């Protein structure tokens, strides 16, 4: 986190100027943008690919590709969304190359429009901090479970869930990033969340006792 440091307060005008200079080939200006966005980009790639030794390489390649293609960025839209689009596309390409779980593509074809799932996830959250996500502390075990759950999602749902629930992007920004409509984004997020919820419910026996459902 410390790497972003003073660059957290990059104003919109500053960003516009840096983008304009980057489009003229100024690497130093682009590196200011890298310092500002590298945490977000790395985080998205990490959540897309998991704890994998290619995450840093994909992130670096994403910044390089973004610099080389920055002339195609048009002002007036979110630069963050554009940058994350480059990164998430490269992460998806990398994931497809590795084909770690080819059976998932079949799962993605299953349409899932039942209105309800059976169980709740009440006790996956530490007691005493419920309702305050900023103060929630997740155990390493739970973090790993969540990451594994993310990796079971079809790519399109994974991108949408990561961008929405982890990075906090709006539906419009996600639609820009994924080059789809807000309606599609809404559908992907809901299906992704539902899958995540079902995945966590299916693995709650692996969680520490204080994470278990307390309505058993």
């Amino acid at each position: 986190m410390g790497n972003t440091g003073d660059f957290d307060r990059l104003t919109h005008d500053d960003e516009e100027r840096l983008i304009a200079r980057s489009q003229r080939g100024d690497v130093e200006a682009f590196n200011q943008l890298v310092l500002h966005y590298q945490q977000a980009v790395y985080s998205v790639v990490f959540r897309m690919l998991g704890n994998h030794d290619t995450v840093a390489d994909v992130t670096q390649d994403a910044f390089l590709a973004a610099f080389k293609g920055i002339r195609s960025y048009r002002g007036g839209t979110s630069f963050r969304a554009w940058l994350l689009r480059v990164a998430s596309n490269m992460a998806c390409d990398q994931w497809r190359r590795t084909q770690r779980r080819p059976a998932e593509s079949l799962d993605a074809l299953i349409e899932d429009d039942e209105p309800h799932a059976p169980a709740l996830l009440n006790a996956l959250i530490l007691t005493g901090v419920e309702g305050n996500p900023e103060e929630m502390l997740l155990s390493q075990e739970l973090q790993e479970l969540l990451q594994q759950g993310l990796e079971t999602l079809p790519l399109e749902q994974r991108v949408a869930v990561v961008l929405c629930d982890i990075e906090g992007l709006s539906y419009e920004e996600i639609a820009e990033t994924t080059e789809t409509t807000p309606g599609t984004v809404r559908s992907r997020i809901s299906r992704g969340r539902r899958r995540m919820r079902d995945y966590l419910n299916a693995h709650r026996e692996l969680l520490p006792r204080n994470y278990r459902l307390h309505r058993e």
Partner: protein
Amino acid sequence: MTEHNGQQEKQHLTTTQLSTLLDGQLPIEEREFSDAHLATCEQCQLELESLRQTKMLLHALPRPALPRSFVLPISTRQAETPATPLAPLASITPITPITPITTPTYHNRNTSRRADMRSYYTRTALRTVGTLAAMVGLVLLLSSLIPFVNNKGGGTAQSGGNSTTLPATRQATPGGPVAPNLRGTTVTQPQPTHPSTSSGTFLPPVLDISTLVGRTFYGILLFVLGIIGLMIGRRREPHRGP
């Protein structure tokens, strides 16, 4: 009014509606219906709560620590021309001439990438060869154990014949370890003290693969070399998770 409420209770909210409601993105008309339904439907309340908690858990995931900075080298240059002729130029600087590219940077980048790929292929080849060597070594080691197993368990003539088939075919000269009898079957002979090659030069038993000692030696050698190859060619993991 009662009928209307009854309809609302029967028709539960979909996951998409609940998820969108959670993000505050539900259109106002749908929102009114959802609020009215949620006020009376415990099932939908539970569903909404489970989605809320899933979202909260994901939101609470910590950001992974950066393994390094991703700033680009100062020598990095942009592409000389856009990838496609229709790619839009930046609206901010439509007239500014594009900085010409210097090809050495590309060469450096490509050379580095090629070197990485070479390294990757070398490691993969090393792993493959190492695995094969270790497997062959293991087979040789196991095959050297067969006579012991046979002796211990009163081995059959058939299995004894199998264990000496190779020497019998390779070394039909007098003095070899195996000689065919009149029925055409093979009979195990005592281990030779000085096995010889066809050219007449003597090999120490440890180097002759037809002997028990030789197989054991080659088995151990290949196995160790295979393991070393696997160790050298194993995948590198530059960083770990948070």
